[in-house]
């Protein structure tokens, strides 16, 4: 039977390399998914993921079991990925204009959800769009991609995002909105979905 994370953490703290390796193997794909979402380059995401585990090992003694190991691991992963982004592309701070505003206006509400249908698992379109998701994420500005991935993969609250990214809560909500809107535009574009006339309330 597989040992729980905390048992493996305890053994790794005691100097058991195989216990730590078990933790790595158990979490490696999810860590890579978060890293890939933020840095968008596969090889860079690989390095970020490995670096995150090395940092986790360095700080095992400081891990307090108030949060789950997964939460702690993902927090470190996101921090490493964001640091890498800042070093790699320091000049790209905010580029909201990357997706033209006219495209945003064309994103009619409900198009994506209607096209995907009600079955979240089995539509062909969903599989196609999932396969192209990283491509779409790669089109987003760093700031939008990072906040969207942290929200959707780690489930961070507005407050946690604000603290993690060092921005006000209002900015978090606004940035998330724009990130989602751009993703909807990109994904409906990939899927070749025609946007019907949207209904707007006052």
């Amino acid at each position, binding site marked *: 039977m597989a040992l729980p994370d905390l048992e493996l953490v305890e053994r790794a703290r*005691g*100097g*058991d*390399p195989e216990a*730590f*390796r078990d933790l*790595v*193997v158990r979490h*490696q*794909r*999810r860590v*890579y*998914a*978060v890293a*890939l*979402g933020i840095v968008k380059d*596969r090889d860079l995401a*690989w390095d970020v*993921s*490995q*670096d995150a*585990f*090395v940092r986790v*090992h*360095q700080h095992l003694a400081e891990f307090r079991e108030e949060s789950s190991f997964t939460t702690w691991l993902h927090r470190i992963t996101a921090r490493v990925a964001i640091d890498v982004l800042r070093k790699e592309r320091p000049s790209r701070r905010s580029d909201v204009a990357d997706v033209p505003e006219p495209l945003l206006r064309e994103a009619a*509400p*409900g*198009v*994506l*959800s*209607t096209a*995907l249908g009600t079955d*979240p698992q089995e539509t062909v379109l*969903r599989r196609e*769009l*999932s*396969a192209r*998701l*990283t491509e*779409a*994420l790669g089109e987003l500005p760093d700031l939008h991609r990072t906040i969207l*991935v942290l929200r*959707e*993969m780690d*489930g961070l*609250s*507005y407050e946690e995002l604000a603290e993690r990214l060092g921005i006000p809560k209002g900015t978090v*909500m*606004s940035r*998330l*909105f724009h990130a*989602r809107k751009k*993703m*909807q535009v990109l*994904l409906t574009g990939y899927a070749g979905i025609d946007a019907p006339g*949207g*209904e*707007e*309330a*006052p």
Partner: protein
Amino acid sequence: MKCAGAAPLLGSLPGELDPGEEALLGAHLATCSACRARQADVEALSGLVRDGLRGAAAKRDFSAFSDGVMARIPASAWRGAPAGPLDRFRELLRRHRVLAAASALVPALAAVALYLYIDRRGGTGPSELSVEVTSEDLATAVLQTSDGPVILVGEGSEGT
């Protein structure tokens, strides 16, 4: 509340908005089909982001990943972990090679010392060894001779 104000609130986690915001958003959604549709889009997108990134991770070959991580952790990092008494003794010997060499000589030095002690004591006469032999009902006896103490192991004392 208008759509422009409601849109950023869509996709909130339960309990994430303050009660005032939550009430205003609820009232707006009740009357605005466009924002209800946006809400559905947000939910659809959430699932796609998770599925897409996990799918990309699932396609990659991770067979060398953990080896790469372990190779980046220096061996000394594992030695820094709390060790047992035997580990600590080994580490002490590793660090102090003179001490290690001396410890290897300890059994030999002890044997020589014992030999010299017995030899010298034996030379002064058996009475000074004060070895008392009691053989009654015992199978083993120690005899003092001019060459030193001799231990006699008997056949046993069956029936006694």
